């Protein structure tokens, strides 16, 4: 137990953060679950005619959209004939209502729950038309942070950084650093979407998507390998080697696209970053699979041990027969691969590729690794600690979004969090604040 906390002490911070945001984001909101859908339909069976025009409203990309689908399908089952689904922005909702008015078939019943009830458009329409039968499910107390949709959003948001952080952890464990990952991400996104564009664009079959991903990832892998060669054989300082690569890769991404985003991609591109496998979001699957694999590699294979040894004392490792140079090349190779794969995920999430993606990401990734407690001087740190570090950053961003902080404030807070977590780590490893300050 003590050993666990020695390695993963930051998990406490993560738990506290989650608890904090769960509490402060508690709010009252009309329910939008299955139960709420059923009671809504039941009440309508009694109060509304089968031919009444019923409008069901939900916000795009929120759980109220699911609510709309549930309610409308149940209404149709119950025999209602004129059910109109509106899923979109408040503006879409207003436009639809006006359209119905103009055609001369105004809505008789209006149903909406969750975030919809907080729209100004919603309130305006209710107050304007007095003869409208408005149905709002009963209010319940929720923690916005703990909503399933929100938790998935936390993962979606961090998956790119967390994937790169695997490669970065390996590199930092050897005492190196990789500044090129943000640019490599953009390059991979650009190369993979360009391949899709060339091989059919919007109508390309699914295998083209995979080919695109393969192209993007392997290009970044090769570039990572080159960085490793520079560091291991030519003894270029990692900071310099990867700084140069960072600039070249970014420039290359702009050259390839002429500075524009690539939108001519097939629909199936979205599967990787937005789809689900067996009902689990793919982003979650990716994180679990990659992190478990990386942990097993680092903790239970001899190559993992070699990487720790190279970072701990390169000379002692060399004299013990550890293939130091190969291990260095390997970690930069993995760094390139993970950055490339993250680029594919990013392209999939955005359904496009752009040369300016991933700007500053190298710093967020390094922050995640450091917040996780990995020492920048190499030799000590754990893979799962990095995941915890990535989550700490994501949870803070998400929590501040929910609380309505603007992005400038978020940047300041994030910087402070990095500092604080490093300080906590120092205090912990030196056995207390007093000792840290005195010794």
């Amino acid at each position, binding site marked *: 137990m003590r050993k666990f906390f020695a390695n993963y002490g930051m998990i406490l911070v993560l738990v506290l953060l989650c608890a904090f945001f769960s509490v402060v984001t508690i709010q009252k909101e009309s329910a939008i679950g299955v139960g709420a859908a059923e009671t809504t339909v039941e009440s309508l069976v009694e109060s509304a005619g089968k031919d009444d025009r019923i409008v069901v409203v939900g916000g795009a990309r929120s759980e109220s959209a699911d609510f709309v689908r549930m309610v409308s399908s149940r209404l149709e089952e119950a025999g209602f004939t004129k059910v109109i689904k509106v899923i979109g922005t408040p503006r879409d909702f207003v436009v639809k209502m006006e359209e119905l008015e103009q055609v001369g078939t105004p809505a008789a019943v209006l149903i909406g729950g969750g975030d919809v009830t907080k729209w100004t458009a919603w309130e305006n329409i209710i107050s304007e038309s007095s003869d409208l039968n408005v149905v709002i499910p009963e209010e319940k107390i929720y923690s916005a942070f703990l909503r399933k949709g929100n938790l998935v959003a936390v993962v979606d948001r961090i998956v790119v950084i967390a994937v790169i952080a695997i490669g970065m952890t390996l590199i930092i464990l050897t005492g190196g650093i990789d500044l090129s990952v943000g640019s490599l991400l953009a390059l991979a996104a650009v190369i993979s979407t360009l391949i899709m564009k060339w091989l059919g664009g919007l109508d390309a079959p699914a295998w083209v998507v995979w080919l695109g991903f393969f192209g993007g990832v392997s290009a970044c892998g090769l570039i990572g390998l080159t960085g490793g060669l520079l560091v291991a054989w030519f003894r270029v300082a990692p900071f310099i080697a990867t700084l140069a690569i960072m600039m070249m890769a970014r420039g290359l991404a702009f050259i390839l696209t002429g500075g524009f985003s690539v939108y001519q991609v097939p629909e199936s591109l979205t599967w990787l970053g937005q789809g689900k496998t067996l009902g689990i979001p793919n982003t979650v699957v990716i994180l679990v699979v990659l992190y478990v694999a990386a942990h097993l590699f680092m903790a*239970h*294979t*001899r*190559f*993992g*041990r*070699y990487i*720790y*040894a190279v970072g*701990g*004392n390169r*000379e*002692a*490792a*060399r*004299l*013990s*027969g*550890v*293939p130091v140079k190969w291990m260095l090349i390997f970690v930069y190779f993995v760094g390139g691969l993970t950055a490339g794969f993250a680029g594919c995920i990013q392209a999939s999430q955005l359904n496009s590729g752009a040369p300016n993606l991933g700007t500053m990401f190298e710093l967020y990734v390094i922050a995640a690794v450091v917040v996780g407690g990995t020492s920048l001087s190499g*030799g*000590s740190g754990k893979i799962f600690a990095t995941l915890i570090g990535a989550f700490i950053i994501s949870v803070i961003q998400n929590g501040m979004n929910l609380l309505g902080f603007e992005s400038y404030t978020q940047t300041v807070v994030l910087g402070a969090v990095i500092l604080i977590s490093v300080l906590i780590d120092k205090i912990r490893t030196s056995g207390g604040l007093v000792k840290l300050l*005195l*010794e």
Partner: protein
Amino acid sequence: MSESIPSDIPLLEMRGIDKRFPGVHALADVSLTLQQGEVLALLGENGAGKSTLIKMLGGAHSSDSGEILISGCPANIHSAMSARDAGVAVIYQEFNLIPDLTVSENMFLGREKTKAGWIEQKAEQKETRHWLAKLGMDIDPDTPCRRLTVAQQQAVEIARALSTEARILVMDEPSAVLTDREVEKLFEIVRDLRAQGIGIIYISHRLDEVFEIADRLMVLRDGRKVGEGKVAETSRKELIEMMVGRSLEAEFPERNVEKGNVRLEVRNLNRGRTVRDVSFSVRAGEVLGISGLVGAGRTETVRLIAGIDAKDSGEVLVNGKAVSVWNPRKAIAAGICLLSEDRKTEGLVIQHPIRENFGLPNLRKFSRGAVLKESEETKAFERYKNDLKIKASSPDQRAGELSGGNQQKVVLAKWLERNTDIIIIDEPTRGIDVGAKFEIYQLINRLAAEGKAIIMVSSELPEILGMSDRILVMHEGRVMGEINDVKNATQEDVLSLAMKTVEANT
């Protein structure tokens, strides 16, 4: 010293010092007194608690209980700074000089002489010259410290200590890195300081030195004080027995091993000016000692054989076959391993567990495919831990927390497990106490008996003479001669070869 006068207060008194580390009771109720103008030798095996005690005095550790009095007044030493203010200066084994700064910059680091914010370099250099001259050293204060010899660096450390007006000077193994001539010079300095009334605590493993320089001695064992007395009234044998806690028969164990075929042969090795045309061979079951003064090219030679540095030319043959040793991995695969003289920078990853250090060259053996079987590694390590009597709280203890002797045993264990036919040991007992030394000698004998070929590089003549079957003596990168009849050889024989200049070659 004037013990008869009752008002005489000791310069330094440490009372009831107690310190625990996780799993170790490092110091148990230890007391120490030091008079003005006295040299107190602090002795004990590695791990006995000497370093811990000294670090407390220097402000690097704090004690759990106990007090320190300086000239009778309680001193609150909690940092290097407060130790300096209290008049204590500690010269650690690893010097605290910054290689790229000059001598005078190092001298005044942290207490620069300034006038209106500007450093007065002239004044600093003048004072540096003054203190160095006092030690009889002629060093230009403007030289970067990286260009100094080890002895000169030590002199700078001492000068710095003196310039802070330290009245208590602690020297941790000051002679370990010096040549014999330099040690003589050091002793002159120590005697001179003693005459000036400075109290000196002198830590050494070399018993000869203790008898030569110290007035009084104090022995620690397992964190307890086990003996104290005047040097003049203590015999060498008594002292060793006090340190080890048992009586010792001989300093070097007997060995009776039949020699086998030639295991390793080296032909015409060359590397720049450091190794020149070195050839020799070692048989199975044989211990070849390589002797010579510091800088004679001994370490450089064995580093070539072990593939650590690249050779310019020459051949290495193992069991009669030429092998390529252009990196350590190749050399290990060919059956050659080297235990380097510098454990901390070359032998161990000090912040990693000793079990992992032990495993490092042997991971292939402990893996199925790429998957590591940690249980096998732990089991193998536990065997060596018992066999070599490695003192550690657990296999997961960090290597850096172990004493020098135990660190050396961990390094030995990792190479024993690798089981190579040829074992090169560079300074096998540097910084190791008498008791552990004997164990390491026994181990070398055991390896020879198993048919290994052993090369032992050592600066200690008694060790070379006591342990080798044959001795190779080097000077300025060349083999100056070979002593085959070791039993009848003397230290003078070795030294005369080591200092012989090549007349024909000029």
